[in-house]
């Protein structure tokens, strides 16, 4: 139990934490979009690849996949540079799947940051925003899956949990781990091991790694 290391957690809702590593990974996910104006000289950077060398411009209306941080940055002006569309998973079709039964969906495969990414989408003005927000948070997904996560995290002691965890996205996994940690701590206390001084896990990890050079 590495008790002293507290990493910066992900942000809540449409805001991100600047220093949070989770948020950085999450904002790396790509959004589909279209170029609104012609974009000079960027053909090589955004992966179009065709045309005569690196001097080409991307014509108007062509489809692009941009990561969230780029989309947010380019969005700040008068909205004439790029327009984003919703990824498939947040669209109507999937929303009905979620409202039918949310526990079945493999959220890890659908982009491991479903909740965080969805919250970022609320930043871009989009006519379907209220429905997205509702789907993410309310009865459709989070609440219905949450009960099962809580249940399984509190009752799977010392078992192999990889089957349970495989279908959860990152936020749910963090919750699951917190539940497991609480359960483990409690069991430790029950067994009387709470007063045993343990090696910190940081130290254990450092011991396992081989350092290439050691000073005397």
């Amino acid at each position, binding site marked *: 139990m590495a008790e002293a290391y507290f990493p910066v957690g992900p942000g809540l809702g449409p805001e991100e934490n600047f*220093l949070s590593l989770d948020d950085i990974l999450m904002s790396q996910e790509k959004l589909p979009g279209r170029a609104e104006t012609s*974009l000079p000289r*960027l053909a090589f*950077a955004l992966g179009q690849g065709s045309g005569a060398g690196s001097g080409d411009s991307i014509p108007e209306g062509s489809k692009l996949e941009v990561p969230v941080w*780029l989309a947010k940055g380019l969005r700040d002006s008068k909205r004439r540079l790029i327009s984003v569309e919703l990824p498939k998973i947040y669209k109507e079709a999937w929303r009905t799947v979620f409202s039918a039964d949310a526990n079945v969906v493999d959220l890890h495969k659908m982009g491991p940051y479903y909740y965080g990414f969805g919250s970022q989408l609320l930043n871009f003005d989009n006519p379907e925003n209220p429905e997205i927000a509702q789907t993410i948070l309310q009865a459709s997904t989070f609440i219905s899956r949450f009960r099962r996560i809580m249940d399984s995290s509190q009752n799977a002691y010392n078992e192999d949990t990889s089957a349970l965890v495989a279908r959860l996205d990152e936020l749910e996994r963090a919750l699951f781990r917190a539940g497991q940690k609480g359960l483990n701590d409690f069991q430790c206390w029950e067994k*009387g091991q709470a007063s045993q001084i343990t*090696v910190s896990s940081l130290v254990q990890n*450092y011991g396992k790694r081989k350092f290439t050079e050691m000073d005397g």
Partner: protein
Amino acid sequence: ERNQADVSEAKAGRTDLIFLIRFRHCCLLRNQRCIVAYLYDRLLRIRALRWEYGSILPSAIQFHMSAEEVEWFNRYKKSLATYMRSVGGEEGLDLTQDMKPPKSLYIEVRCLRDYGEFEIDDGTTVLLKKNSQHFLPRWKCEQLIRQGILEHILS
């Protein structure tokens, strides 16, 4: 530098380059964010080391720290020590001791690695060889246990 050249071109009238400038600017900001977050995370881990390991870091870890990080660690140690001295009355209170509530003054420990000689308060020295067991005062052993040299045994 390329961005600067484009900026001056844009101001001169080619407004369609604005996108390019914004794009590069976004990339630069993104790189900056990643670097800053990485360095900050390193600092958080180094701070955790002070609490988990003790005030002297093993040379292997120090080798991997940059000079600024070593400096940061020393300053953090100093402010922590100043704070601890001011907290508990005359002598101060060592906050890094007794991280778990103690049940007894003396504890049973087993040695996991060869460490050498170890002196206790009343002057006797104990030779810590691998797998030897001792009955030692808690406050002396706590740091060695956390470093992985001794192992706390419960009866």
